[in-house]
């Protein structure tokens, strides 16, 4: 069973700690532009919504299928989709085909840089104070969310019956 970084956008305040930690751990420098996780923010009427975007480690990943150099594959130990950098052409195909735009070709190394789950202990999760990012069993996540939805519904029902 693979573990992935799961995102709860209701908890994310958009502080971007994950971006800085990711770049420091993976590149040895503080530079969110190179991070493998990006917090995408929008502001409407002064209220900010923030969505951390990173590799979903898909079960049937398009990036792996479409990579012309066959540089992408799954690390069976961590479950992460990883790049064989010596094979990567830097052609951006993975960026285009990914429904989330999660991978990126690094402007300095010129090859695809994507989330490797930090070899099984992701630093983005470690610095996330709000626990908007968690490292969990992807197949358990669905049932958790379903239950959370049910609880919300029950809460709503209570307010309705009270009033």
């Amino acid at each position: 069973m693979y573990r992935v970084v799961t995102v709860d956008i209701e908890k994310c305040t958009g502080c971007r700690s994950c971006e800085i930690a990711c770049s420091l751990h993976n590149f040895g420098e503080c530079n969110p532009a190179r991070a493998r996780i990006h917090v995408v923010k929008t502001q409407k009427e002064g209220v900010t919504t923030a969505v951390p975007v990173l590799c979903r480690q898909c079960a049937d990943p398009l990036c792996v299928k479409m990579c012309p150099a066959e540089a992408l594959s799954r690390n069976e130990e961590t479950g992460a989709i990883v790049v064989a950098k010596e094979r990567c052409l830097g052609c951006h195909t993975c960026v285009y085909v990914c429904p989330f735009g999660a991978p990126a070709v690094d402007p300095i190394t010129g090859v695809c840089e994507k989330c490797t789950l930090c070899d099984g202990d992701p630093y983005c999760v470690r610095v996330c104070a709000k626990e908007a990012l968690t490292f969990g069993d992807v197949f358990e996540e669905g049932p958790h969310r379903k239950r959370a939805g049910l609880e919300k519904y029950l809460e709503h029902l209570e307010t309705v019956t009270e009033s």
Partner: protein
Amino acid sequence: MPFLNAGEILHVDLTTGEIRTQPTRDYANRYLGGRAINAALMYDLVGPDTDPLGPENVLALGVGPLGATPYPGCSRIDVMARSPVTNLLGDSNMGGYWGAELKYAGYDHLVLRGRSAKPVYVWIHNDQVELRDATKLLGKTTHDTQQAILEELDNPNVKAFSIGPAGENEVTWADLHQGTCHAAARTGMGAVMGSKNVKAVAVRGTQAVGVADPDGLMQACLEAHAAIRGSEMYQEYSTVGTSWCEASYGRSGIECGGDGHEGPIADWDPHRDQAFDEFWAEYGIKRTGCMGCPVHCMETYYVPGIGSASMSCELYTQSSGELRQDLLRGIKLVKLCQEMGIDETSVSNVLQWLLVLKDMGIIDDSHLDGVPLAWGDVDSQVEFTKKIIHREGVGDVFAGGLLAAAKHLDAHTASGPRAGQSTYYYAMQVNNSPMYGINPRVKSMALAYAVGRRSDCISDLNMQDFDIMSVSAEYPGWTDEQRKDAAEFDAATAVYVSGEPRAADFDAIDGKAMIVHDMGRTVGMADMAGTCKQHMKWLYLDATPSHMAAAISAGLGKTVTSDDLMWASLQLRTLERAIECKWGRRREHDTIPEKEFDKLVSQGVFKGRSCTSREDLEAMKDEYYWLRGWDKGTGVPFGETLRDFGLDHVAEDLAQLGILPACADETARRQGIAKASTLGYVWPELVGRNNPGGNKAPWADEPEGSAAEAAEES
């Protein structure tokens, strides 16, 4: 690449359009960063005759060495200029996302000088820096300005801060705003930027901040994160926020609420903290914070018909309690101030002053262009504030500051009702800067206001100071047992920090100077490093100078201890003081409004207590100057003290100006600084440390060649 620092200071001359850079190293070898380098820039670039709103004034924005790293609260930007409010050193601190972006663009500091002929905004995209036409942006709110810039540059990753209409009109209390809620609000920094014809500064950076030991820095940062998240108060701040502080002020009677002027509020409600929960439940949207912050101390509200606004402690105090209205009304004023780019604290203070003058029969609506200003009536408050922002009618006079407004009112009112006093006598101000909603009648507050940097109290006193006086015992929902424990803990803390057995005594002056000094130096460390003071004991969270020192050491690749940080903090405050003294500040300017002497707290838990006399304040000031190594007679730092902190050039300067005091008792001076260097309870391993002495910045690079010479010798 220089570690931790981005490496360059960006100078923009708006008169000539010249854009140049200077290595940060020129300053970083002597000063730690952030607020300290800003102060050094002010010292070098601004003279005693500089007009705050003239082209020769300098607006400096700086990020510290821990800014833009994973260290918690890495977002802070220190903003300095000569202040149009006080005509002394203006300084304000802003969070948000702009500061880190500046570092990613390759700059530690941005220095704006001169005056542009036409309205512009500065666009910094890594090494591409340009001045762009801002004509279309004139008149726009702070928020709309930033949105328009993002659209114009077609880049959603750009971070911008701007002034609003208040800054364009050079209203003395105008501020800088970033997003909807991050502001450099105090001391009129928006007016300075407006006077330079700069509407906004936008930045996008995609470069690295270099680190000597990435794993070490990551570890140090994770430890600081863990310390904050493990703090006893963390859950409160990260879920309830700081709204409860306001309730605590209210219950203690420390909040002015009109009492700062004359007489208690008739319908004052000590239990209105309940209302925060209800307000949050009804209108709260989400918690908001700054870059890299685990706390998220602000609340974002959406109120139908008003819109969204984000608030934290002081905004609650000022907008509601101070003007005797509920939060729903108060938020309307907050929203206006945030959009128009004006300091809400100053606005509320001025409105309160006018309402008191009105209550006393000194002025009436006719002095306010017929605006029926009233307590609890936010619509009239908003109407009058708009007059100030847009300089309409009498608002034009008020936009020039409290002193100008008082002169105008004096000339247009009968002197009978004010007993021959100027209306300025009733203004709650220090050096013309409108006070916070915190009562100066309490002894340590009086001292903090009097000697505080930028003529206000907030950096030099804090939650802890209130708590020492057992206000935390009034935390909403606590049991009697908890109140008792808190009071005992606070008392013990006070004694520990100051070494005075009576320090926790509300009515005594003993040890208050050490308590105020202790907080000032803690805040200084955070402001220099570019992190948030709220993560330290300022707000009862457990990040310490040791955490900061560990992170800086790993980042720089050389050992910097918490002792070094304290040395830097003492250096900083002495430099700031020397600047102010050079510009004319002396001991007599360190005071509180005259009418506040010999007054009792008139409501709340401490009703009938305290009563700071002028003698009390003068005695506390004596002790404070002694701790700082400043001359008691004039309040100017001794040459010996300046030299202790590597400020020899400043000492020479002050001597040339003939204002450098002679130190008659070197032993006493050294004893003062030795005591000031004794660290308090959160750093027990350092208690008893003596004057660090020496005058070289401990983190300075070795001069070129010296390492090779040393190698040769060995």
